[in-house]
């Protein structure tokens, strides 16, 4: 159920259950996760879990991964003090972890690089991926091009239409974009189709999942490949300001940038964390993507976690202005962190995210991705009583170039509405 008058700052201090550095033997974070997939995939998932563990501990793999993260992706990304935004909003000193400066313009590459290195190690010649906004598709196509792998990206037909620039980028990178016409024709259906493809070609294909979702070991593996975000940020905070932040904020769709950002700080008891979901047109409108804030526990795409669904257990179609948050589920570890209260979850609407988009663009000269604008908007909504010395870290998960059409269209709509209102008043 929706929390009444939920104030995200009021329960930020609760830290009850322990941090789980890894899921249990069955791939679970508490009650969440698991492997709810067709039998055909079970042996492949078992092998993948073993391969990943082995590679992760292998210095040669780590060296190659770190080298490419540095030389190919351009890491480490900077930690930037948004001085003018901090002054304007007066919620504390806001530091941005600049994942928008990562190659391909978002944190997604950290994960696709790791997974495709695994694919190459395992001798796979073909990779597949699902994508919503196209960011994960582009990041997969990019690394597939770098390693000369065949790449097929499943994308809902509606997303193909509304994310044309990313479709073009994937094609230029040599990937095949397959429009998915089943179901609601968006990210969840693209994910179904990618899983179906993998079931049929599990022998020669590696499935690159884009977030901390899906059957074990994906939620764990993707988190491990993304944790570099927080590891860098933790060092940068200590170097740049001599202490850890008081609060970390990140947006949550599936939740990979948030877990990537939070994980390195999990044991730092003084660091509070806020995950921000998309409230779309408002939690009560029914048009949102806030699985943790307004969903019920269920099973989708191979794991158990919070979901948007009907009373009958049918998955409902989410809504967010940000295509990257437009997903009816969320990673199992987030489901666990919500229950354990180590992370507090809140949500912001399309409107609030757009306002934050504008503020960052105008005050700092940075166009954020609409996903990341949700994290910023949640900072804006923090109570003003927080001291001005409060240090807030925000994961700026991606850049906003991909969202220009959406933002411009929304601005036009608003301008129309204002002129209609003023005409009525005349």
């Amino acid at each position, binding site marked *: 159920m929706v929390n009444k008058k939920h104030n995200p700052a009021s329960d930020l201090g609760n830290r009850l259950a322990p941090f789980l550095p890894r899921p249990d033997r069955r791939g679970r974070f508490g009650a969440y996760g698991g492997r709810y997939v067709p*039998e*055909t995939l079970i042996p492949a998932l078992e092998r993948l879990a073993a391969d990943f563990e082995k590679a992760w501990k292998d210095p040669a793999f780590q060296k190659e991964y770190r080298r490419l993260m540095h030389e190919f992706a351009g890491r480490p990304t900077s930690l930037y003090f948004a001085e003018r935004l901090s002054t304007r909003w007066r919620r504390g000193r806001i530091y941005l972890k600049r994942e928008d400066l990562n190659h391909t313009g978002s944190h997604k590459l950290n994960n696709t690089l790791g997974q495709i290195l695994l694919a190459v190690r395992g001798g796979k010649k073909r990779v597949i991926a699902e994508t919503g906004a196209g960011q994960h598709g582009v990041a997969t196509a990019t690394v597939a091009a770098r390693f000369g792998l065949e790449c097929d990206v499943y994308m809902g037909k509606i997303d193909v239409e509304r994310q044309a620039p990313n479709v073009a980028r994937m094609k230029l990178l040599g990937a095949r974009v397959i429009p998915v016409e089943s179901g609601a024709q968006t990210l969840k259906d693209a994910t179904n189709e990618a*899983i179906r493809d993998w079931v049929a070609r599990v022998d020669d294909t590696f499935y690159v999942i884009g977030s901390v979702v899906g059957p074990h070991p994906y939620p764990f593996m993707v988190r491990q490949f993304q944790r570099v975000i927080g590891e860098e940020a933790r060092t940068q905070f200590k170097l740049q300001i001599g202490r850890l932040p008081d609060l970390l904020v990140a947006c949550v769709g599936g939740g990979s940038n948030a877990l990537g950002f939070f994980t390195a700080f999990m044991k730092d008891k003084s660091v509070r964390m806020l995950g921000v979901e998309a409230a779309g047109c408002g939690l009560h409108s029914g048009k949102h993507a806030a699985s943790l804030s307004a969903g019920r526990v269920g099973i989708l795409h191979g794991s158990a976690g919070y979901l948007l669904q009907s009373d009958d257990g049918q998955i409902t179609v989410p809504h967010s202005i940000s295509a990257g948050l437009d997903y009816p589920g969320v990673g199992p570890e987030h489901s666990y962190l919500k229950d354990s209260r180590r992370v507090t979850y809140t949500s912001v609407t399309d409107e609030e995210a757009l306002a934050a988009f504008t503020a960052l663009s105008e005050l700092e000269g940075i166009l954020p991705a609409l996903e990341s604008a949700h994290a910023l908007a949640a900072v804006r909504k923090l109570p003003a009583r927080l001291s001005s010395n409060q240090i807030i870290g925000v994961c700026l998960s991606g850049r906003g170039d991909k969202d220009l059409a959406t933002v411009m269209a929304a601005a036009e709509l608003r301008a129309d509405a204002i002129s209609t209102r003023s005409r009525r008043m005349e």
Partner: protein
Amino acid sequence: MPQFRKDTAVDDRLRDLFTAGKPVIPFLTAGYPTVSGFVDAAVAACDAGAGALEIGMPFSDPLADGPAIQYSSQIALASGITMPRVLELTSRLSARLPIPILLMGYLNPISQMGFARFARAARAAGATGTIVPDCPIDEAAEWRSASRQAGMANVFLIAPTTPDERVALIDAGSTVFSYCVSVAGVTGVRRDVSESTRRFLRRVRRVAKKPYVVGFGISQPEHVRALKLFADGFVVGSALVRILRESPKPQAAVGVGRTIGALVRAAE
């Protein structure tokens, strides 16, 4: 502590499924193309000699199904088929047909109703067991215990990628019989049955102690003849959905009956 409850026995009709030869088992999506079209097709299939009936419980995200069954699920959901409606239709058909009914569907709608509550309601509606393609045996502990208490059979899937040790595990965990997926892939009509399917089924035969049926891509009498020596029964689904989709109403049930009849003769 969970309360101790005695297990309920599985329906005899399901226990006897393999005593009179190799059954042909049609799969029909509940309420597709319409409620009456579905009921007529089920009756026609039974009259044509089907050994059991699989009723598909439509789900919004059927990730083990190909385009034909996805489409039928979408249509059924759009026409208002819910889980309670599926159970109502099951109850109608179980009163009318002498053959055992199995329910096939995904775990989320079942879990939302509650495992125990669903299992009891399904048994009360006359269903004898379930097949849940996104619930592999490793995740099934709670669902199996709810099913056992209600007297509902669990039929687990075996895939060509399943290693021998797992085949043994699945065979032991399935009630009465298990279900072999003919190829690595989703449900759907396929042209022919390959040698690798026969190799796979021979491997299962060496390990399995219970009977097993084969499905996914079975639509022609030749398929049944090619696999007859290697399996104990045959499931046909997408081909029937295709007939229901393409034929006008009165002919549709006749078409389903004819297809089942041909497969039954091939299985004799």
